[in-house]
């Protein structure tokens, strides 16, 4: 029984949080999506998704140290929790399973 499903955007952002390690915060994630995936997304949408992921327990967050950048505002950094890691793996396994069962000519190109 799967407890909680996550959406496609949530999955992407969860992966990016994992990928970015120490640098995972709103702006960095938004830019990654924009540059890596060529997908136009606004920073507020990223925040909302992160908030959802946090509520579901897949990421946890903490405030960074004060700097002189960004008008003196601190950043909120995110980290993938063990539950977040588990669900990423689960999705990966499920996908791999499905891919492996694809016949060679599944669709015509």
């Amino acid at each position, binding site marked *: 029984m799967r407890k909680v499903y996550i959406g496609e955007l949530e999955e992407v952002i969860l992966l990016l949080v994992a990928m970015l390690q120490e640098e995972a915060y*709103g*702006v960095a994630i938004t830019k990654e999506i924009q540059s890596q995936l060529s997908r136009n997304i606004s920073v507020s949408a990223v925040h909302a998704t992160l908030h959802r992921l946090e509520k579901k327990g897949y990421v946890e967050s903490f405030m960074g140290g004060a700097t002189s950048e960004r008008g003196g505002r601190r950043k*909120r950094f995110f980290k993938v929790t063990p539950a977040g890691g588990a669900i990423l793996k689960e999705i990966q396994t499920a996908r791999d399973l499905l891919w492996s069962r694809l016949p060679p000519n599944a669709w015509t190109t």
Partner: protein
Amino acid sequence: MSGSHQPPRWVLGFLAVLCRSDVLEEIEGDLLEFYDEWTKDGKRGSDLLFVWHALKFLRPHTLKRPFYHSKRSYMLRNHITVSLRQIIRAKGYAALNVLSLTLGMVAFILIQLWVGFEWSVDSFHEKKSRLYSVYYTAKGVDAPIGGYRIPWGYKSPTWNFKEDFTDQLMASLPGIAKATEYQALYELPWGYPHTFQLGEKIHKIKGSLVEEDLLDMFSVKILAGQQVGALTKATDIVISERMSNLFFDSPAAAVGKTLRYENRKDLVVTAVFEDLPSNSSLQFDYLLSWKLLHTGEVYNASGTSMIFLLLEEAASVAQIEPLFKNFLHERLVGHVEEEVNLGLIPFDEMHLHSDFVNGVPEGGRVEYLNLFTWVGIFILALATFNFSGLATARSVRRSKEIGIRKAIGSSRSQLVGQFLVESVLLSLIAISFSLVIVQLMLPILNTALDLKLSFPYGETSFWLMIAGITICTGVLSGAYPALYLAFQHINKMLRKEFKLSPGAVRFQKGLVLFQSFVTTSMLLWTIVVYHQTQYVRNSDLGYDREGIIYISVEGELTTKYLLFKEELTKMPGIAQVDRSSEAPHEMKFEVADAINWQGKEPGQQVGFFPTSVGFDYLEMMDLQVAEGRGFSRSVTTDTAAFMINKVAAKQIGMEDPVGKWISAWDKRGQIIGVLEDYHINSLHEPIRPLIVDVKEDLYFGNILIKTRPGQMADAIRSTELVAKQINPNYAVDIKFLDVEYGKMYKSELIASKLGSGFTLIAIMISCLGLLGLAVVAAEQRRKEMGVRKVLGASLVDLIGIFTKKFVVLVSIASLIALPVTYLFLRDWLQGFAYHIALSWLHFFAVLFASLVLAFLSISIQALKTARLDPVDTLKLE
């Protein structure tokens, strides 16, 4: 942070109020980080992006509790849901309201954009609080006259162009930090765009003659070249970016280069300035040094110049103004009349106060602005009242709903809230439509009215205004029905038949009265203004302006005019060629002391408008000779002869002028004929004394060309060809006399076109309102009509009963509106020396039109109701 750009601070404040404190910091930080990146491509758009993204952050999880998870917030969302259902349920009613609100808002926003633009003219100069324009006051025929263009005679009684007036002004009067004379070289009577040449490139460009202080006084931004002292030498020229791009690759490349001016002198580009914004009243693409006038290398374009002063910080107008009179009269002993004086007006007000009353700036454009501001407010009020009236009428239908809401415990404030949310929602829908429409209409408006308005995306004040309109119209239009229904007694509401109280009926009648009042006034105003504009444009001026084109006398044409005339006359499309030192439609040059005549009494002064023409001028322009004869080549003494017009003969008090002598400056000769009066200026001004002589060798003026009917294209080709041959170093700039004549009425034309557009909108809104009221009334009176029909009333009777109330109201409103508007229009027409007479026909036409429109809007519904079968309408019982 780059530090150079700051996002709009109110956005951050806004977020701080709405957002939870635990997420506020990261939101602000992320937004600021993005903002830094956006500002790399300029500030304008990034501010807008900042606002947009900040708004997108307002989501449930970021908002403070009271804004999302509170009773009030749930209530609000419920109100919105219910309102949307109401709108969907009564689609026609909502559409009617949105349509009329949209029309009203479009009119209001467009007017505000235009008015705002006009107010912003000249406001961009940093030192505007200390910048002043000088105006003069002089003796007029009845009352003192005045103007911004100071006649040369006031500056130097001997017309010595080398005297530096501003230097003397600064030396004699305290408190003036800087001063400059200003003359637009393209302005009438003798100005035209001057010619510049660089190799093969020849262009005619409009520019001005100024003193070097001008660049320090006004905010003219230097892009390349000398920041200071760019106009110290007579050979210096400062050009605009636009002009530098015509001749050179870039502004920087222009600096230090030489341009050939009027094929006469080489000028060195010392600086390039940023193109002037369209809201600058002074327009020029280059500035020449005033010293050129001293050396005689540039001709005086108008015999007048404007004078601008920059006062010292501590100086005040009250301290300087009283000293002007003494200063002038000391210098010009015996040359000026007692009334002559100078005055100051803040520079940024000069554009709006273009008219002079008793020699002092008063009114002008600003009157139109005020008028249209009111028109905008009234139109919006019409739409708002429509809504109120309709909502009140419809409340009958919703009485059950409200009654039940009350019965199950809804408070008054919640009911009021429900109605207000509904009206604000409709107003929001309307404003979104109007913003789209305004955007689509702006380019059309700009072309039709020759304006340069743009949609102010980045301006906070504009969006605040939009928010203001939305909320005000929403709340105001919903207020009466909301309060009315919320305070009705529950028993009344749940009764079978809910009837409007007498108060509500009076309110409705008041609205209809007000609407008809506004539309009738606007209709009358528009018809009269349109009529007058047509009159001005089509009236017989006493000369023929159709099919006449003209070019300036310049370059080789100053000496080869006769050759040009001979060559051009042979060409296809050309009927006749002649010349005049003044533009025939707008003779700006007036002189009094240089004109003398037989029997002139000592001290008698009459202002004359002099012009020098060729021998064929009278025939070509179709001017009528009243007495004596016109100029003739065969009479050798005619080069020394004069003609005057009838007004001149009357004003100098000369009977039988033919044969008597008259003189202009040092030329003296016989009056050989008297011309019938013809208009030498716009119809705003009465016909003034005219003195004409023949001079075919003047170095300035215009060559007028009469084209053959229907061969304008040939004529233009011929003129260009011959001008290029004889005058190769100059670009040909052909003007059309009728077009130039029309330009003198630009503000009237704008008023007329805008006026008719907005009147149309007002009428549409009112008709929609009446239509809506009729729909509701028809619904309520179905049974009554049914009963009447059963008892034998005819269709005509029924329609009569139905429309009577409205028609009476509209008639009363019109009868009040017409006289009020009449008084207003009388003043407006007084601004023209020649104007149409207001006749009863105007009033009857308007009254008739109002009644017909009202009748039509109502009777369609009336007819529908009257034709219903009584069997259907009465069976419900």
